């Protein structure tokens, strides 16, 4: 596979950023939901 | 809440940079009253006046001014309210005459109202041609008051109006306030000069830590 370096870089960056954002969002969601009472969570 | 009360706040909360400047204010002011608002610095006097003028959102409790519910719409009340804040709202590079004429044009006041307001505040004649930036604090205050007088507002909100004025200037302000109240306006004055303001006011309200304490 020629240009392998570039292609791996694109996949690495894109999936890396996505996974990073997902983990960050989940952790942020968990931390916040501990400090907020249930009544303030419209989705529950 | 009597029908014609001009201001009616019940447990109103207003926040300034995250700090509850008004922490549950309950206050009712009737037409033609001259209410003295006193209290230590930082008690929320200026914030209360700005909230009444619709400049700041009231985020809790209820707040009605001249029949408008400020929590829903705080812009339509402004045409009928006049606020003299710490700042004069003037343009330093312009002369007194130009400032007063600008303000009377944008609020739709007539030329006679403009000239009479300037005479009343003793800023007409030669003084009128001087630039506001060259004036003393008292003269600037008088010019700001003239710009307020031409507004013919139904509710006057004055924040430390006497500050920086000489005795003659203060008498003139008291006369204007009494006259405005006599002609149907309602006035709320926030002031530290208690004895002078007390002769002027029909009622005194003290504001401590963002709430109205007692009012006689």
């Amino acid at each position, binding site marked *: 596979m020629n240009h392998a370096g570039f292609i791996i870089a694109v996949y690495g960056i894109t999936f890396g950023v996505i996974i990073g954002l997902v983990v960050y969002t989940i952790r942020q969601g968990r931390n916040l939901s501990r400090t907020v009472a249930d009544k303030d969570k419209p989705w529950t | 809440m009597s029908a014609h009360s001009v201001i009616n706040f019940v447990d109103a909360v207003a926040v300034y940079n995250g700090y509850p400047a008004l922490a549950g204010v309950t206050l009712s002011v009737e037409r033609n009253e001259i209410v003295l608002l006193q209290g230590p610095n930082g008690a929320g006097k200026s914030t209360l006046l700005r909230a009444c003028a619709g400049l700041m959102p009231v985020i809790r409790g209820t707040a009605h001014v001249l029949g408008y519910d400020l929590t829903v719409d705080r812009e339509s009340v402004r*045409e009928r309210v006049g606020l003299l804040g710490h700042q004069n*709202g003037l343009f330093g590079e312009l002369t007194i005459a130009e400032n007063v004429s600008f*303000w009377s044009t944008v609020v739709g006041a007539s030329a006679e109202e403009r000239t009479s307001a300037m005479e009343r505040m003793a800023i007409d004649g030669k003084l009128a041609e001087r630039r506001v930036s060259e004036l003393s604090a008292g003269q600037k205050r008088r010019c700001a008051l003239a710009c307020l007088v031409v507004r013919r507002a139904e509710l006057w909100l004055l924040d430390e109006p006497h500050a920086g004025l000489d005795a003659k200037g203060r008498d003139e302000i008291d006369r204007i306030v009494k006259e405005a109240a006599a002609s149907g306006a309602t006035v709320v004055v926030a002031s530290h000069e208690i004895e002078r303001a007390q002769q002027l006011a029909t009622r005194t309200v003290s504001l401590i830590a963002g709430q109205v304490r007692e009012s006689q």
Partner: protein
Amino acid sequence: MSMSTSRIARAVAAKDLRIELRSRVVTNQVLPFSGLVMVMFAFALDNDDVLQRVAGGLVWLATLFSLFMLVQRTFAVETYDGALDSLRVAGVNPQGIFLGKSFALFVQLLVLESVLFVAAVVLYRVNVNGSGVVLLVTCVLCATAGLAFVGTLYGGLTAGARGRETLLPLLLLPVVAPVLICATRATESAFRSGGVTVGEGWPWVGVLAVFAAVFGLGGLLSFGSLIEE
């Protein structure tokens, strides 16, 4: 309602321009700055053919840099002594304020641009003649109208609380990108630089006119809520 809007607009425009005549900020500070920028371009590019070729772009770049200063100045006048709050408290129609301030900014920009174009002719040995002048004048009028509306609109937002001044370039630069592109292309046609004919400039002026119309209308609708606290 619109009668009082135009009365307010005239009063605000007259007030702004009179303050400018008295304080001379544009003529004593912004104009020398933009002239200096033109000279610095000449130092940077130091090749007469290149300079002549890109003169159109340089004039509009210098105008954009000056636009930030003019917008900051025009709203500093309002917020210095709380005049903007007083205007809001008096329930003055925001559309009138928007039109008035835009017109004042429009006039100041025109003064600035005329000096810059003279500098371009002198410094970059650019020549404009015949139909080129007609194209140039129309392009300048449309582009300046667009810049004045957009500058007043986003300037209104950043005039509010502190710490908002740095927001103005971030918000304004992307918005004025089309004006920079179109005005430069139209000006290059007017200068006939790089073999471009005058006729090719007119479509660009069309886009500039659309830009000015779109942001004139957008500004009228949204200026009121942008200056709100």
